[in-house]
């Protein structure tokens, strides 16, 4: 079966690597990946723990399908207590690291304590070692990745690495694996850095087996066929990636702009997926070279891009890593929006450059772009000046300024380290917390809650802080998947969010990518799981597991002090109406939706998980 049933527990304080059995009882309740690691977190890390203290623990975990031939089955998650939000953090990444962990014989790697000196973890099947990282501490992800491959003389090594930002305590540092795939949100890289761990370098040769091969091939082949025949997963995502959304969201007046002051961006088409296909003047090449797949992915939405060689960001820059002058992981919609639309910048190459920096130094581009946008608004309002910014003229639309800020956050220096604390802390420090577009201290993604009402409820209730990947009702409200609902309507959105949130938690715990859910429902996931592992896995059971996971996360957050009290949107969403488009004049209807949401969740009117709900879910 596709569990290895083994956990590698690494105590960095003691310097020990100890194998232990996976708690199979918990897998029955929480499946793997997001759900299972959250269970471990809630059992092992008290909710009041300081996220950057040695008492916090970091869980890198695969799902039961990870490493198999099921489509997209290369995922792993990083679960810990977030230094950005103080809530449960769970960041999910693709690439080729998760499957390698499974191939090495581990379902999960646990990092606890804190190493006295910088180290990296080397894992070759059963053999795990804590090794000195003095030579790569202070280096970028890309430099460290090269060093590790050379050091171990193994071109097939898979590495998950933090950049300098994570070493320096930037609160939205990401863990980057395979050079440009990220466990991006909520500062999981910051936690890794706080433990003095620079990298985990893996090599696995054991492989993965499944419980019932015949049924598994039948189920996965049928499911792949669904992805191939679906227009979104079979054509749209491979061709234009997530960036195809830029024009849709902008045209419907839901594209947050200038730190969410406005809901459409005049320069959107210039930084869109379509623009990435247009040949540029300098060398006749388009921004996009090709699409790429993560492990086992038959969708392949990944972008491989180049920066215009004549763009100011790279021209005559011998100091840059060679990849800035070649191909690397390009823009996704969220990054293009945060670094572009939210900051008012319509320079595609500037955004691609900033994306490369985020990959090279391990940053979440959403939180980065949003924080820069908030700083830009404060600069334009005169709340901060060049004295605060270190001389940077931080106006909306200034690509040079955005790039300068990105470079400074990437190395955690000066004004960059201040921006690196995130928009909530930055705005609070300068006396204007209302200008921070965050929930639970995590920056908003790319959909305006005034124009897409369900997303506002999603941000407010998301257990990891504002996020689009916990309950992506955009699928229904904008794209008509699985059914079209009116984005301006609040009625029915509580139930819609809950359905998306629960199903997403199940997808996130299985080892597959959430993008499969544009074509698959739990009905398609269940038979794949059922064949891969022991036990009876039905869509209903997966739905219940999703609900259980959501409530478990919520209970942890309640105990951490970021439960119902944090279910709110910034005042701008509640009082500044959308300035144009179909939502013109509208604010978020959160006040209407939230009580319905609590009721439908089976929570108290105050938003607390009730004893009955706990009992019903076995929590």
């Amino acid at each position, binding site marked *: 079966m596709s569990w290895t049933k083994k956990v590698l527990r690494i105590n960095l304080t003691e310097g020990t690597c100890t194998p232990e059995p996976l708690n199979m009882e918990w897998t029955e309740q929480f499946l793997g990946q997001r759900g299972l690691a959250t269970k471990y977190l809630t059992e092992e890390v008290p909710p009041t723990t300081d996220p950057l203290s040695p008492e916090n623990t970091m869980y890198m975990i695969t799902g039961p399908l990870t490493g*198999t031939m099921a489509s997209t089955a290369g995922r792993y998650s990083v679960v810990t207590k977030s230094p950005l939000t103080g809530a449960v953090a769970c960041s999910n990444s693709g690439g080729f690291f998760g499957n390698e962990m499974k191939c090495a014989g581990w379902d999960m790697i646990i990092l606890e304590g804190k190493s006295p000196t910088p180290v990296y973890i080397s894992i070759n099947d059963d053999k795990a070692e804590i090794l000195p990282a003095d030579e790569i501490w202070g280096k970028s992800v890309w430099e460290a990745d090269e060093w590790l491959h050379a050091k171990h003389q193994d071109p097939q090594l898979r590495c998950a690495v933090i950049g300098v930002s994570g070493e320096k305590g930037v609160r939205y540092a990401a863990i980057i694996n395979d050079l440009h795939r990220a466990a991006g949100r909520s500062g999981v890289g910051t936690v890794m850095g706080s433990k003095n761990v620079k990298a985990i370098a893996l090599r*696995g040769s054991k*492989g993965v087996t499944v419980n019932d091969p015949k049924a598994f091939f039948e189920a996965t082949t049928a499911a792949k066929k669904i992805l191939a025949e679906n227009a979104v997963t079979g054509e749209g995502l491979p061709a234009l990636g997530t960036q195809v959304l830029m024009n849709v969201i902008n045209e419907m007046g839901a594209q947050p702009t200038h730190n969410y002051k406005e809901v459409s961006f005049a320069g959107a088409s210039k930084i869109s997926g379509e623009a990435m296909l247009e040949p540029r003047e300098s060398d006749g090449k388009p921004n996009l070279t090709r699409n790429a797949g993560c492990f086992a992915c038959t969708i392949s939405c990944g972008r491989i891009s180049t920066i215009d060689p004549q763009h100011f960001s790279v021209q005559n820059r011998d100091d840059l890593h060679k990849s800035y002058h070649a*191909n690397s992981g390009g823009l996704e919609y969220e990054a293009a929006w945060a670094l572009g639309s939210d900051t008012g910048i319509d320079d595609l190459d500037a955004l691609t450059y900033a994306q490369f920096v985020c990959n090279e130094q391990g940053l979440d581009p959403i939180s980065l772009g949003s924080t820069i946008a908030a700083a830009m608004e404060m600069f334009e309002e005169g709340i901060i000046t060049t004295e605060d910014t270190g001389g940077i003229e931080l106006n909306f639309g200034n690509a040079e300024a955005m790039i300068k800020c990105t470079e400074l956050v990437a190395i955690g220096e000066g004004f960059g380290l201040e921006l690196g604390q995130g928009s909530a802390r930055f705005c609070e420090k300068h006396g204007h917390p209302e200008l921070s577009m965050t929930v639970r201290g995590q920056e908003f993604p790319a959909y305006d809650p005034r124009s897409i009402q369900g997303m506002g409820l999603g941000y407010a209730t998301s257990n990891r802080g504002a996020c689009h990947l916990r309950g992506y009702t955009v699928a229904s409200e904008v794209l008509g998947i699985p059914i079209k609902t009116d984005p301006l309507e609040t009625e029915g959105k509580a139930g819609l969010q809950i359905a998306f949130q629960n199903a997403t938690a199940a997808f996130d715990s299985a080892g597959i990518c959430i993008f499969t859910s544009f074509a698959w429902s739990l009905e398609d996931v269940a038979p794949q799981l059922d064949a891969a592992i022991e036990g009876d896995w039905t869509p209903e059971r997966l739905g219940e597991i999703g609900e259980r996971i959501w409530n478990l996360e919520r209970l942890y957050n309640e105990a951490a002090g970021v439960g119902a009290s944090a279910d709110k949107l910034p005042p701008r969403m509640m009082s500044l109406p959308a300035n144009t488009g179909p939502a013109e004049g509208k604010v978020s209807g959160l006040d209407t939706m939230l009580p319905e949401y609590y009721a439908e969740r089976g929570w108290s009117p105050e938003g607390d998980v009730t004893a009955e709900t706990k009992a019903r879910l076995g929590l």
Partner: protein
Amino acid sequence: MQMSLVIDANKCTGCLQCEMACSYEGEGVFNPTKSRIKIFPFHEEGIFVPYTCTQCDEAWCMHACPVEAIVLNKTTGAKEIVNDLCVGCKVCTIACPFGTVNYNADSGKVIKCDLCGGDPECAKACPTDAITFQDANWTGYDKMKGYAANAMPAK
């Protein structure tokens, strides 16, 4: 009709479905390390290249084997390893100019592509048709057709 694997690197997304299919067929496990076909990512160039044995007619590996453990499958044209004969001396891995014969430390034998007996799993698993199984005499058909399209007279 003899068939050949045809590889079009421009279509490859680097997903490794082929490597898993290959390792499962050969070893009964999803394990890219045990695959006879490999995908090579060229990161800076932005391209993924699948590579495996081309089943040379005058196969260096077959001629080099001192115990005649590499034999021609007359139906498929594949050069196959006879595991019962292979002594794991690895001379074939040295003889092969392309590196497509490799030693499997777990079994003590070498492994190479055997075209799965005439129905290669890698080609079936490839989601983008970067790997196809075609008439051995016409492996250039698609490429030729592409250029023919360019030469099509305007209507």
